[in-house]
């Protein structure tokens, strides 16, 4: 999956170099990262519809929660019982949501060409790409940072042998990060951002299982 994505990205970069979104394709030079999380109706990319998008910028060791994206979308037709159970988002909660077009526009402007951080971030990117590509003719070209990889690399380095437990709740408790609002897009994005900063700048946690 990774290789086709990078090849496709190169092609798309060539196609859009002169377009209105050319900035997205430039290599990022700053020190910011965007932590992103989407709540969706399904864990299958083909069926998933986006319910809400949350994102915050990380600058150095700081999570800039004052500049954040907290988008609730109009309820998709597929809003089903299962995802309601996970996210506790009902159609009525999304009654004052915005249109998907509008949300994607805001999201692209917010992210720019910064790297995107997330927990199983490829899923979010692929779902977003599914909706972005038909509208813009490209997928998100940004570099992706997978939180569980960052965590895994550090833990593995300290801890030879055995599988590393990569569940969200385990990581957050190992890193001693307070769980903010679990299962809201923005809450998860902030938690992931804090975990990232903690891994990047903090002392390596003790992982004696």
């Amino acid at each position, binding site marked *: 999956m990774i290789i086709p994505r990078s090849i496709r990205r190169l092609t798309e970069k060539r196609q859009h170099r002169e377009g209105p979104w050319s900035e997205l394709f430039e290599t990022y030079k700053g020190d910011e990262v965007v932590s992103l999380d989407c709540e969706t109706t399904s864990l299958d990319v083909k069926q998933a519809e986006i319910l809400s998008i949350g994102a915050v910028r990380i600058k150095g060791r700081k999570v800039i929660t004052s500049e954040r994206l907290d988008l609730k979308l109009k309820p998709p037709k597929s809003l089903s019982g299962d995802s309601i159970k996970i996210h506790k988002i009902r159609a009525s909660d999304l009654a004052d949501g915005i249109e998907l077009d509008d949300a994607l526009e805001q999201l692209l402007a917010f992210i720019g060409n910064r790297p995107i951080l997330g927990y199983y971030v490829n899923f979010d990117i692929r779902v977003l790409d599914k909706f972005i590509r038909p509208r813009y003719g490209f997928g998100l070209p940004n570099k992706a940072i997978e939180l569980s990889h960052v965590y895994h690399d550090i833990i593995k380095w300290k801890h030879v042998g055995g599988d590393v437990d990569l569940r969200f709740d385990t990581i957050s408790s190992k890193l001693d990060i307070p769980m903010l*609002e679990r299962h809201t897009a923005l809450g998860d994005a902030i938690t992931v*951002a804090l975990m990232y900063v903690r891994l990047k700048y903090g002392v390596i946690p003790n992982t004696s299982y």
Partner: protein
Amino acid sequence: MPNTFKMDNIPFSLLNEGEKRLLSTHLDIAYYQQGETVIAAGDVPEGVYIILKGRVSESEASSENEAAQHIFVHYENEDYFGGWSALRGTAIHNFVAEEESICHILPTRTLLELMASNAQFADYFQQNLAVKREIVAQHGGNQDMAEFMLAKITDAAVRDPLVVEQGVSIREATELMRHKKADCVLARKGGRLGMVTGTDLLDAVVLEQRPLETDVSEIASYRLVTIDHEDYLFNALVMMTQQQIERVVVLSGQEMVGVVELTDVLSYFSSHSHVIGLRIERAASIDQLREAALGLNELIKALISTGVKIRFTMDLLAAMNGRIIAKLFDLTVPADMQPHVCLIVMGSEGRAEQIMKTDQDNALLFRDNLAWADKQATMERFSATLISFGFPPCPGNIMVSNPEWVNSVGDWTQKMSDWADTCEGNALMKLAIAVDAKPVAGNEALFKVARNWFLRHLRNNDVFFSHFARAAVEFDTPLTFFGNLKDRDRLDIKKGGIFPIVHGVRTLALEQRIIKTNTFQRIEQLIEQGVVREQHGRDLSEALALFIQLRLRQQIKRTEEADDGVDPTPNQIDLQQLNKLERDLLRDALHVVKGFKKHLAQRYHLGG
């Protein structure tokens, strides 16, 4: 919107909904690893930091070669720091993460915006301890008080409100008030109610010369001060005193149920303490007096547990105790001896700062060459009776049953000056107790002669004052304990806070020859004489009141829990029992003590 930020804590709970929203949209979160500097002295801080998790210490900007930095304070979960630095523009201290810390940052610009829109929030951030305590008192101060008696608003006479509609003239309103025998009327204007008092009517007609046909709703004041009908009556009194008003509107939920007036509140209270006072006055035998004295305990307990301001309680108790002792003196000492002797109380009793009955510190002065054969036997009986009233004996045996504390005026003054000259610890301690003396019974003139002589005797004796003051700075004031709640969760508040203030103020008062003995009154006098700056004096008073209040609450609790009803550690404060707000105030108060000790050290040249 992430609700990681707790708005329930003061000062953030002072903000209204809109301001809270503004606050939460401007918060950032920062991560600091152990040992990392959050704000360095000289930096321009980004704003106020509120700890989400972790611990941060504040320390002095050290010169290079100073090895151990002096840490002032530790901040923990939900504490905020850097407010002062943010307002000044630069930090004067170093703030370092003691452990991994995650902080919310409220940018200075937003802070200033909030301070501009919310005066109380601004006060809390800028002001000193005295103002902070006042704000706290107004905002849910009494929540965790024990459920005790004391009158609720509904117990007093709540008067039916007299409401008039908009358009009623001043003349009509006045007639109605006369008819209904009311001295205030509530005028409705749109959806709001405004208060019009007799004074308002007079002012409007006589001073402003408005015509009698003026609509009363034009002269009403719409900033109504309200209280819930379930609230304590005493709080209504405090409110009236603070705001200098005589009426408070009583609400039940959102609905107005009436008006309570100052005269009603006062008459209610006076009738209570008055009853006990009468019983003391009328006691014809020691047994009757004992009964009255024991009744007093209950009253005090009730006052304390309902959160009545500590100074009122202390004043009331001192007055009552004084009357009990005076009455006992009356019943014990033969009438023909009374003009020739004077009974004094000393120590905390003499300062009128005793609340829980600690020990009796008293002494007797008698006219030089008085012949009274039964003197010592009578005094022994006196002490024993007081013990039976529930005044425990003094462990240092400073009471009239001990001949050392029964003296002629000449011997007494000699003793005091000997103590002052030795500059030795035990003697100075006795002297400290003795200079807080207050006459309670017998011939006051005897006491005054001795006191005035002694105050003159001390004049300009710098060596004495330097020795005397030293005790106040002897014990360290613990400001770093907040970080170690787990291993060191107790604090001796007497050594750390109460004693330095009381003794320091006592020294200053002696030097200025102030004859008041109560620490609060001494502070007021010191301010008046320009020895202490007003701001500092008020902070000192509030700090002392806070210490006493916190200590008292835990004392009561421990006394109730102990099997024998005796509190084994009367001066300990268990920090874990304090809530976040109390820890905040305690920290500020200890800062005040620290500053005061510095001042004393400078004034009396107590190096080191």
